[in-house]
């Protein structure tokens, strides 16, 4: 801590602060325009000029000047005020001043500063800027006439997003912000640049002219897409969510969002939302009412026993899932599951055996505190972009070493000094086991591993994972595996990250065990910045596991339920929010099974492909209309509150399950709050939680880790089929599950499925970008547009799974690697 005097006030501040930071901490306001707390100091605008006595009263920028002991700073002398007025006059000289039609009006730093400093005339004369305005981009409108060249957009896209789409072009008065070769913007569309732009140069096009900033009600919430659990603020007017509002003080991510969180909110007020219960009559879904619909469902449920089954989406709140489970138990069935079963197996099966708990021991906050990150699959960026930002910042700002084990290159591979080992698809488990073997052989293992239960058997089993043999199977060199293993083991703090999800069937319990074994043997558990983090797919995937909403003790898991439907042993199936027809493997099988199901109930926001097959469809609410808690991937439990009133006649899933429990003769809890109290009393790790304790940013549920080694199974290497390509499925950056199809933003930039293939394969097979290719596997055939990229290795093709119009499960039957032929 250093002592200094600011405006005559004795203050202290940490020694690495700038004058601006020191003032802010002590409640003294210095105006800024180009400074952002998340970005490196830049010093472009000179709004923050202050005088320092030790520097002979020269005016210096507060945002870039570090403090020194005994500094005497003046922040608002008449000379400084004059200097700031001059800065504003010069900025306004060429500025269009079209505040009445500028969407930034009311939230504009330039406007606010102009008002504060009462700059209402200009001593200079010059023409206004005449830059061309980019109206064509569907998500981001760029009007460089309003730009104040603060460089925040350029810097955030580089420093945090790591994309580098924007840059300064030209010099002097001609300077403007643009993309390479002055082309249109074609980037990740995370909207970070829009969020930080202090003026109306970069604006969210979907929100263009929709409302003025001051007329919006700001409702804090939690993103309803992926497991990162980003906090966001919804801008609401007339019961409509019109936009997301940036708040730099929100969450661990300081208000940063990805394209889905930032631009994917339109599903909430979509015209396509279901508003009335539907009941199938004479083969057609017809509008009905809640009484009738619930009565029919209750009569099917009552005493149905194991003939009824339930599949839920992990987008429901913890309270809803718990209530759903209770309802099923009242109906006499234990057959309930979520996320196709295998997508949560890493937690519900893998970690249970390795750690004795259903959660990973580390949190997102560990990423930047680590020394080495080992990321399994470059897809981790696409599945969890804001976690990707954390990785970017760790590598770029904190010098964290990044190692990637993946079947393809990806965005993360391009980070400075990142090392990506590209292995043959589906072989990550074997490689991780071989790494464990290297650590053991080279005496790099943690001193106390011999005490960990299961060590002897584990050591024995590792004999089968000689790095040389595995390297050959996996298309790597043994040296690479050894080097990776030793740098992992030698790093003081090392964190392993891997995504799980419905498109990643290979990321199962075995992978979780292999990762856990590696972390245990290298002694990487229980330290800050170290350990294991499993990135779960949906906003409440972790919560669904914590609530125990999955098959235990011989009950049927999601895929067995589908089989049961096909075999006729399951007669009533209640699907809450899931869309298996699109997101579960093997389209034909799922379709046949749902056809066979005597009675299908679907509660949904939209008339999805699955809902269209149902006998009763219940319109339910989105996250913006309900109250409850959700648990992010690192077990951050967060409280969501309704931002708008329910759409149409829709009800929350909570109300639906509560009503059904009543009809089944039980006593339903009155409010989500009472169920949360029950959760706090019963669920391990959630003890003593309450809405008030959760606050705005949530609380981590404690994870009690009891490490144990799990004996790895020998797996046969996937044997390539000659003349065929290996298809791997996954998530596209712009989407999450099937819900993002109803968010307009994601659909503007990624409207349909595609098949991504390497340049080498494209050249050999004479495919060009956007060619319509026929992809055929053992289970079916479909057409997909070609996307030729440099990141794919030869022989591998990738297809995202989100799209209902042409679902990839027509050719993908659920194995990690599907062998396909691709023809034009």
């Amino acid at each position, binding site marked *: 801590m250093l002592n200094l005097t600011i405006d005559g006030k004795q203050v202290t501040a940490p020694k690495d602060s700038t004058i601006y930071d020191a003032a802010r901490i002590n409640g003294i306001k210095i105006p800024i325009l180009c400074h952002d707390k998340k970005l490196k100091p830049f010093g472009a605008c000179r709004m923050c000029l202050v005088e320092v006595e030790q520097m002979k009263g020269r005016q210096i920028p507060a945002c870039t000047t570090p403090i020194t002991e005994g500094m005497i700073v003046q922040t608002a002398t008449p000379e400084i005020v004059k200097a700031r007025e001059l800065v504003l006059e010069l900025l306004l000289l060429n500025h269009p001043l079209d*505040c009445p039609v500028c969407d930034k*009006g009311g939230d504009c730093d330039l406007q606010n500063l102009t008002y504060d400093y009462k700059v209402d005339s200009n001593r200079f004369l010059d023409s206004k800027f005449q830059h061309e305005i980019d109206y064509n981009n569907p998500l981001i409108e760029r009007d460089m006439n309003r730009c104040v060249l603060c460089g925040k957009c350029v810097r955030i896209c580089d420093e945090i997003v790591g994309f580098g789409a924007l840059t300064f072009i030209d010099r002097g008065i001609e300077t403007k912000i643009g993309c390479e070769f002055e082309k249109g913007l074609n980037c990740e569309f995370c909207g970070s640049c829009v969020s930080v732009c202090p003026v109306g140069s970069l604006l969210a096009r979907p929100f263009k002219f929709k409302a*003025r900033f001051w007329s919006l009600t700001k409702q804090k919430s939690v993103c309803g897409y992926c497991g990162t659990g980003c906090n966001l603020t919804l801008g609401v007017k007339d019961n409509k969510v019109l936009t997301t509002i940036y708040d730099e003080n929100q969450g661990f991510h300081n208000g940063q969002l990805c394209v889905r969180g930032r631009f994917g909110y339109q599903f909430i007020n979509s015209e396509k939302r279901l508003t009335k219960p539907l009941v199938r009559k004479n083969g057609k879904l017809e509008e009905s009412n809640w009484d009738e619909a619930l009565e029919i469902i209750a009569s099917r449920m009552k005493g149905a026993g194991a003939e009824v089954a339930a599949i839920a989406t992990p987008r429901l709140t913890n309270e809803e899932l718990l209530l759903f489970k209770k309802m099923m138990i009242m109906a006499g069935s234990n057959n309930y599951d979520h996320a196709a079963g295998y997508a949560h197996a890493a937690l519900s099966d893998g970690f249970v055996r390795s750690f004795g708990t259903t959660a990973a021991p580390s949190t997102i906050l560990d990423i930047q505190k680590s020394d080495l990150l080992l990321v399994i699959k470059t897809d981790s960026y696409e599945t969890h972009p804001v976690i990707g930002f954390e990785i970017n910042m760790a590598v770029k700002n904190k010098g964290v070493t990044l190692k990637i084990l993946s079947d393809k290159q990806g965005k993360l591979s391009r980070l400075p000094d990142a090392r990506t080992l590209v292995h043959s698809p589906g072989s990550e488990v074997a490689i991780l086991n071989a790494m464990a073997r290297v650590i053991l052989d080279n005496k790099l293992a943690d001193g106390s591993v011999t005490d960990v239960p299961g060590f002897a058997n584990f050591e024995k089993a590792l004999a089968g994972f000689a790095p040389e043999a595995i390297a050959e199977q996996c298309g790597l060199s043994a040296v690479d595996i050894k080097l990776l293993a030793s740098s992992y083991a030698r790093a003081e703090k090392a964190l392993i990250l891997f995504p799980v999800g419905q498109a990643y069937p290979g990321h199962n319990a075995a992978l979780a065990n292999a990762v856990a074994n590696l972390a245990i043997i290298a002694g990487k558990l229980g330290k800050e910045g170290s350990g294991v983090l499993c990135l779960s797919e949906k906003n409440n995937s972790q919560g669904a596991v914590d609530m125990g909403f999955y098959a235990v003790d011989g009950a049927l898991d999601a895929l067995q339920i589908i089989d049961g439907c096909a075999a006729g042993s399951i007669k009533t199936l209640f699907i809450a929010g899931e869309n298996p027809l699109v997101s579960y493997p093997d389209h034909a099988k799922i379709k046949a099974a749902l056809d066979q199901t005597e009675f299908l109930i679907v509660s949904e926001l939209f008339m999805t492909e699955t809902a269209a097959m149902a006998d009763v469809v219940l319109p339910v609410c989105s996250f913006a209309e309900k109250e409850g808690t959700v648990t992010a991937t690192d077990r951050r439990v967060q409280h969501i509150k309704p931002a708008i009133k329910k759409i149409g006649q829709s009800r929350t899933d909570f109300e639906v399950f509560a009503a059904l429990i009543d009809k089944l003769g039980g006593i339903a809890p009155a409010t989500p709050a009472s169920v949360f109290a029950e959760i706090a009393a019963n669920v391990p790790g959630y003890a003593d939680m309450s809405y008030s304790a959760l606050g705005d940013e949530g609380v981590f549920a404690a994870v009690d880790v009891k490490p144990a080694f799990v004996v790895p199974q020998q797996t046969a290497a996937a044997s390539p089929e000659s003349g065929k390509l290996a298809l791997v499925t996954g998530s596209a950056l712009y989407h999450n599950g099937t819900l993002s199809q109803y968010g307009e933003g994601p659909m503007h930039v990624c409207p349909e499925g595609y098949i991504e293939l390497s340049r080498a394969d494209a050249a050999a097979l004479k495919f060009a970008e956007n060619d319509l290719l026929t992809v055929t596997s053992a289970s079916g055939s479909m057409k997909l547009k070609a996307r030729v990229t440099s990141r794919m290795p030869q022989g591998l093709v990738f297809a995202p799974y989100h799209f209902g119009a042409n679902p990839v499960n027509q050719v993908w039957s659920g194995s990690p690697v599907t062998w396909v032929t691709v023809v034009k």
Partner: protein
Amino acid sequence: MNPITPIINGLRITLSHMFKKPITLQYPDERPKVAARFRGLHALNVSHNKAKCVACYLCPTVCPAKCITVEAGEDANHDKYAAKYEIDMLRCIFCGYCVEACPVDAIRMTGEFELANYRREDFVYSKERLLEKK
């Protein structure tokens, strides 16, 4: 004071009025001449054949009676215009704040004061009804 004096004074005032021009107007046969600054029915100013209003939402924001509804739209040139502009005259208190707030001189108040109508809906003036008549 002599009790008769106030009566005489009163009668004097009454008498003097008999020789003055009456203030009462024989409305509707006689029409008042409204002052230029009279605050009557609003009109949306027109320039280059379209409403000057750029849908900045300042008038609905400032309006104390909250009787102005604006919805902005984007025209073919990507400019902002009022796709919807409505004033509910039943709620308007004719304060003229909207006129004062308008940054582009798009709205003014006319001398029109005969706003009576038979149906409530008819008191809600749409953009078309508000556009100045030339």
